């Protein structure tokens, strides 16, 4: 009890656990406000969202599937799953990263402007990355590229010097490997 006032500092968190990245699939009732509940939970409790995608996947059952890429310590990630599970319209939460790497893909549209050599270079790179041209004039291309996030990231980086204008990305969608459903 005789410690001085200023020398002792307590760590904000008790453990220096490593930060992991996880991909969660959340099956929810497609009802008004459900996305706000999920996003509000992340914002309110200070969790990270690296990527979030949502769409109705089972029309008759009014079910939507949300794919969330998030980061945190093992304890925080467990909390995120449990907190999501607690929301009334949430049916299931599955951590796709738990059973080995899941299949995760993103789609991006990349607009590039340029003429002459730059234009040729953009086309060559697009070919190497298996990006398709979905819009073109003599001054520009719009490429469509699908793949893992890091592949899209490197494609965008390569497009920078050849005249990148803008990018639109879907965010990650993911599914587990193997014959079983979630």
């Amino acid at each position, binding site marked *: 009890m005789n410690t001085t006032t200023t020398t002792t*500092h*307590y760590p904000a968190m*008790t453990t220096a656990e490593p930060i992991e990245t996880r991909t969660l699939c959340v099956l929810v009732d497609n009802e008004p406000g459900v996305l706000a*509940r999920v996003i509000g939970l992340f914002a309110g409790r200070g969790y990270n969202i690296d990527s979030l995608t949502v769409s109705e996947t089972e029309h008759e059952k009014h079910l939507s599937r949300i794919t969330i890429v998030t980061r945190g310590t093992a304890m925080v990630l467990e*909390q995120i799953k*449990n907190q999501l599970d607690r929301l*009334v*319209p949430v*049916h299931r939460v599955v951590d796709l990263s738990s059973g080995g790497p899941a299949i995760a893909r993103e789609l991006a549209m990349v607009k590039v402007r340029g003429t002459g050599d730059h234009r040729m270079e953009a086309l060559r790179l697009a070919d190497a990355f298996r990006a398709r041209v979905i819009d073109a004039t003599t001054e520009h291309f719009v490429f469509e590229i699908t793949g893992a996030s890091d592949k899209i990231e490197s494609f965008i980086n390569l497009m920078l010097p050849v005249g990148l204008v803008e990018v639109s990305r879907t965010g990650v969608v993911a599914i587990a490997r193997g014959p079983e459903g979630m």
Partner: protein
Amino acid sequence: MSEMTGAEMVIAALADQGVEYIFGYPGGAVLPIYDALFQQNKVQHILVRHEQGAVHAAEGYARSTGKVGAVLVTSGPGATNAVTGLTDALCDSVPIVAITGQVPTHLIGNDAFQECDTVGITRPCTKYNYLVKSVADLPHVLHEAFHIAASGRPGPVVVDIPKDIQFAKGRYFKPTEFHHRGYRPKLKGDADKIKRAVEMMAAAKRPVFYTGGGVINSGRRACDLLRELVKLTGFPITSTLMGLGAFPAADPQWLGMLGMHGTWEANWAMHDCDVMIAVGSRFDDRITGRLDAFSPGSKKIHIDIDPSSINKNVKVDLPIVGDCAHVLEDLLQAWHHSGAKPDKKALETWWAQIGKWRAKKSLAYRNSNEIIKPQYAIQRLYELTKDRDTYITTEVGQHQMWAAQFYHFQEPTRWMTSGGLGTMGYGLPSSVGVQLAHPDSLVIDIAGEASVLMTMQEMSTAVQYDLPIKIFVINNQYMGMVRQWQELLHGGRYSHSYTEALPDFVKLAEAYHAHGIRCEHPGELDDKIREMIEVNKPVIFDCVVDPAENCFPMIPSGRAHNEMLLGDATTRVEDAVTEKGKMLV
């Protein structure tokens, strides 16, 4: 079945759910429901004076009965005023269904008069909420709201009903099944985990039960099973603020409350134990203190119905998800079945150690013949009311902690306090709800003079409905807990914690047509408390106490259980709190 209006459906659903009282305040967007209320006598409406009071009253009703509390407020300010109460109910897991009026469907989003985004505002402070956009959905939604509020870990549910839906006609029915298939609270614990819990408990040398509000929420049966298990094992038991009464305070196995203002023996037992059995408690920061020094040597078993309560703050060794009553029943059965025996010899040593901690008499204070010590006031209140059928509510602050320390609860649901949110102003309206539910019982709000002024207007409600609640004001003229922290942590700079212009509480009581008593001397305390009990109307008891008294024991912020301070250690408190500790509340 004949058609009825949405407003009539609300009344029908309330009646079908067995609602006796609904606490509310009328306004433009709920007029059709008020009209329907007027034309029936199944559900009695209690007119509060502020919507926050409506929710707290419903909480008091719910917590003292185990039933769902019902609230009815209008759109806009009616809904926003209810937000504090809803958040309070969420934090303390109180089942509430709050019906809010909304502007007509076609005006939603138009910034109409008294419009607010009620579902948006209440989304993070409710267990669930609904905006009803079709009268056909209304019967289902109303009943599901009650189902969700009361099942699993209870909580508040808001049903926002636009005015045109209240007028619209449709068929009413009482559904038996609910469409949220994702919502299925797990009641039974895993059998193999329960078996492991028995093994861990039987092998324990220094065990302790650490129980919380979840046991009380689970119901009377859970409390009885807990008592049986504690008796059977001979283990010591401590409870959180919310858990008081689940185990009788008069029992020798009871260590008193734990946590920031818990007893020396409870906190040391938690720190030194080798097996901790947490039942319906959530390892809140008021309980754990410094996390990395929290009960460092123990294996922890955690029984809770809410999986998100497990491994949130403290990593446990054996989580058991399930309802306390179910799990305790299975645990008892498994204990008998396995023929497990507690380690008698080890327990003897453990109890001897606990005896040494108890001998510290950590709740001791220096009494006075000149001035009323707040602890003494609550002790006398306890002595003079303990043989009666008494319910206690509190506000928030020093008086609340003293009430928890010095008013001893033998039974569950007798203690209504705002634990999680710490809402000043909770006690008075809460006691209104408690008194309605228990008209012949003695209902006392142990209050602070600062807290009680936040919801004082509900005295008017108490008088209107002849509810003889007793507001026992521990009046030290300060926001006592704020003053205590300023004294201990901020160099005695009492920034705005002194109330310059307090009302005359006796005259205030009289202005409300209630009874006022002032007590300034320890010698007259007993007689005046008796007078308070005898008067058959609402009473404000202005108990003028020592303004400088601090609440001990205390674990300073950022400190561990074994670093708690006792009353005599006051002068050393400043040294005990680190710079980082001051950052914590």
